[in-house]
């Protein structure tokens, strides 16, 4: 069989695979549909270039395969053609870059009404903290973390005591309300990633990183760690549930504040001491 035919079938197969693939992205469940659109645009432009280059190559393989009595053309350069190709490529690349940068600008500009969520990661698990009635999260330090203070909240920070602690790998979100995910890690790199939300960012020990999104589909989604964090990386999962406002408020009201947690812990300690005395 002629080599050109096989190459042609490879290209044809790629196109058909792309059209009929059952494997494609999950339905987007956040405001980042623009990322999907940019991917689609890049697919059209890039895929078009890929197909054009390969078909041109295959044509040459058919048309100009070796003949004893034929001589190749002698043409070292063609300045005009090279110029046209350079300009066309530059324009194509700029057309892809522009939407990418526009969306990135949105990605790094967090809306003012975003709900802040402290996502704390360790080997290998997650827990979450929401601001209380004052609307602000208390500051934290790794050195403060112990049984009575699982989030390491600075005790002299007045914003901290009403913070809502979610000591579970599952967090609930309010539908159509932007959230700013504030990531921190107590040990190594992690990454709080929900494929349906599209967005992600590493959690880096020693600093707080962030990103934001606005969930817009009620439902439960799996959280995956997307930055290699040691041998338990693949098992570091969590859950998100996006709820309508009333259900979400119900859920929030069931959660414990830092102050009540501390009180509870002290109570337990007292009782333990009593038990020990008895």
């Amino acid at each position: 069989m002629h080599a050109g035919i096989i190459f042609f079938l490879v290209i044809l197969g790629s196109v058909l695979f792309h059209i009929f693939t059952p494997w494609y992205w999950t339905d987007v469940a956040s405001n980042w549909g623009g990322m999907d659109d940019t991917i689609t645009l890049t697919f059209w432009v890039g895929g078009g270039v890929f197909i054009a280059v390969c078909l041109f190559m295959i044509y040459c393989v058919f048309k100009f395969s070796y003949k004893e009595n034929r001589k190749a053309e002698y043409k070292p350069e063609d300045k005009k053609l090279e110029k046209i190709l350079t300009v066309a490529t530059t324009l194509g690349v700029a057309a892809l870059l522009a939407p990418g940068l526009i969306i990135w600008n949105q990605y790094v500009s967090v809306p003012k009404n975003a709900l802040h969520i402290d996502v704390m990661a360790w080997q290998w698990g997650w827990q979450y903290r929401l601001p209380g009635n004052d609307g602000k999260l208390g500051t934290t330090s790794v050195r403060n973390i112990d049984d009575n203070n699982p989030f390491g909240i600075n005790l002299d920070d007045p914003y901290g005591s009403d913070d809502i602690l979610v000591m579970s790998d599952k967090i609930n979100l309010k539908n159509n309300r932007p959230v700013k995910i504030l990531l921190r890690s107590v040990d190594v790199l992690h990454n709080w990633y929900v494929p349906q939300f599209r967005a992600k960012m590493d959690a880096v020990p020693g600093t707080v990183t962030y990103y934001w999104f606005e969930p817009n589909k009620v439902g439960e989604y799996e959280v995956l760690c997307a930055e290699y964090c040691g041998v338990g990386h693949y098992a570091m999962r969590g859950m998100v549930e996006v709820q309508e406002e009333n259900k979400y408020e119900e859920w929030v009201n069931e959660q414990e504040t830092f102050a009540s947690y501390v009180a509870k812990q002290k109570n337990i300690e007292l009782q333990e001491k009593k038990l020990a005395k008895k």
Partner: protein
Amino acid sequence: MSEEFNDNKTIQAQSSEVMTGGAAGATPDMDYVRPAEIPEQDLYHAHSFITKWVFCQDAKVIGVQYFLLATFTGIVGLILSWLMRLQLGFPGLAGFMTAEHYYQFVTMHGMIMVVYFLTALFLGGFGNYLIPLMVGARDMVFPYVNMISFWMFFIAVAVLMASFFVPGGPTGAGWTLYPPQTILEGTPGSGMGILLMLISLSLFVIGFTMGGLNYMITVLQARTRGMTLMRMPLTVWGIFTATVLAMLAFPALLVSAIMMTLDKVLGTSFFMPTILKAGEVLEYGGGSPILFQHLFWFFGHPEVYIVALPAFGIVSDLISVHARKNIFGYRMMVWAIVGIGALSFFVWAHHMYVSGMNPWFGFFFATTTLIIAVPTAMKVYNWILTLWRGNIRINTVMLWCLGFIVTFVNGGITGIFLGNVSVDVPLSDTYFVIAHFHMVMGIAPLMVIMGAVYHWFPLVAGRMLDETLGKWHFWITFLGAYSIYFPMHYLGFIGVPRRYFEMYDSPYMTSAVGMNEFISLAAFIVGAAQFILIFNIIKTLKTGKAAGQNPWKANSLEWYTSTVPPEHGNFGDRLPVVHRWPYDFSVPGAKDDFIPQTTPPSEVVHTEVEKT
């Protein structure tokens, strides 16, 4: 035939313009080449077996040594990839496979393939063998240092392999070795394994610097008479530029390896912030994990081009020779290589869009990254325009080149996805990335390596590799590798994260089970197919057809040595004198379809017919 082809003066002007920008006309004056300015180098002539074949100072032998040792590590890397695919396609089938082992295999596979296989093979292997021959030198300028370079590489590989046998096994930190996990418990091999890795990398960099100085200075200082920079084969341009990149990039790797060693051994905190581990605060504080990532990728991104540029250069030469046509746009090709090399130092943080660095960097690095697509695209256009109106031999070498074009364009396009900052956000750390970089810097350079092996084996061994076996080798490898990595992109779209030992039963990941099985089967077949080449080489060494001088009718100097295979000193009594670029194929008016670089204008044999 058109009229202009009948005019000899036009012909000479065309080719000489490109080569020298000099005068036109086929007068004997044009045969003049400036005399040599320095005397020829004295070579050390080895007599014993050990100085000839073991501690050898001949760049050709050193090149073959590099090639063989790199191939050995490559086979280790290949076996590791089989084990990984076994786990991913058929979890639980191999009873011994724990998560620890899996991550160790992933790490060692990555590091081996990028550094100890591809880099060593392209620069140490092809660089050593081809640079002196192609520029018309008798050897590298510092043969003794060159020998030490190989043996440093040997020790580096020995240390790396030793890490498989130390307590705790090799490091399983991922090839990027991101701290803090790299040196903390919870990552496999965080004791001896990582230390040996860091030592091995340091040794590699030291040895590589010795080789790299040789490649650079030989190209700059030891070219033969008439071999101007703009008459060098693109292979030499590619390897030369890659070496310059390596000289600038590897120090970043070296210092980060040293700093990490200090963090591990002495408890410094270059990369270590305050860390809580198993309820205890460790004695680290104030360091920055992101600093390591900057250093690593300042090395790591140019590293991609350290592998890619030699491949670009070599494939240009192979396409030109086997299409019997000059490489289209030679000057553009040279400047594209140099430009890509320079730009590659300004794009590193595109590996770090979601690393937690200041997100405003994203604008800068997305722009620089997409700019680099322009000279890269120009190279692709020039390769296919070289095929246009050529006289293409569809032999094994050309098949590998065509396979390279398909896989490289495919991988290059997916690079535009990942380079375009906000598109990278959903795709980073997924299988899309795995598919992209294997296609663009795994399979594509491998296609070039294989093409180069089939092309230059007749020079190295004096015999022609079997074409039928070669074609089987190509088709199984190309079709197999393409069906591994093309569908893998779509796993990334689903959102399947990389470096997962097991997928479990996430609803959208269960659909990937069938594809994972298919990919694994393809990987086993492609890996096994590589042994066809080894069989072919053994068979050819015994019974292969003698190659004779210049079997491909190429123009560059390596085919014009005094003997085939070339001896120590390469060129016999007299060094060749160069009169033209290496791409004078199918020159109108010339009798043969190739004019060697050593042929002066007055000696070109013209066709009689065309003068009528």
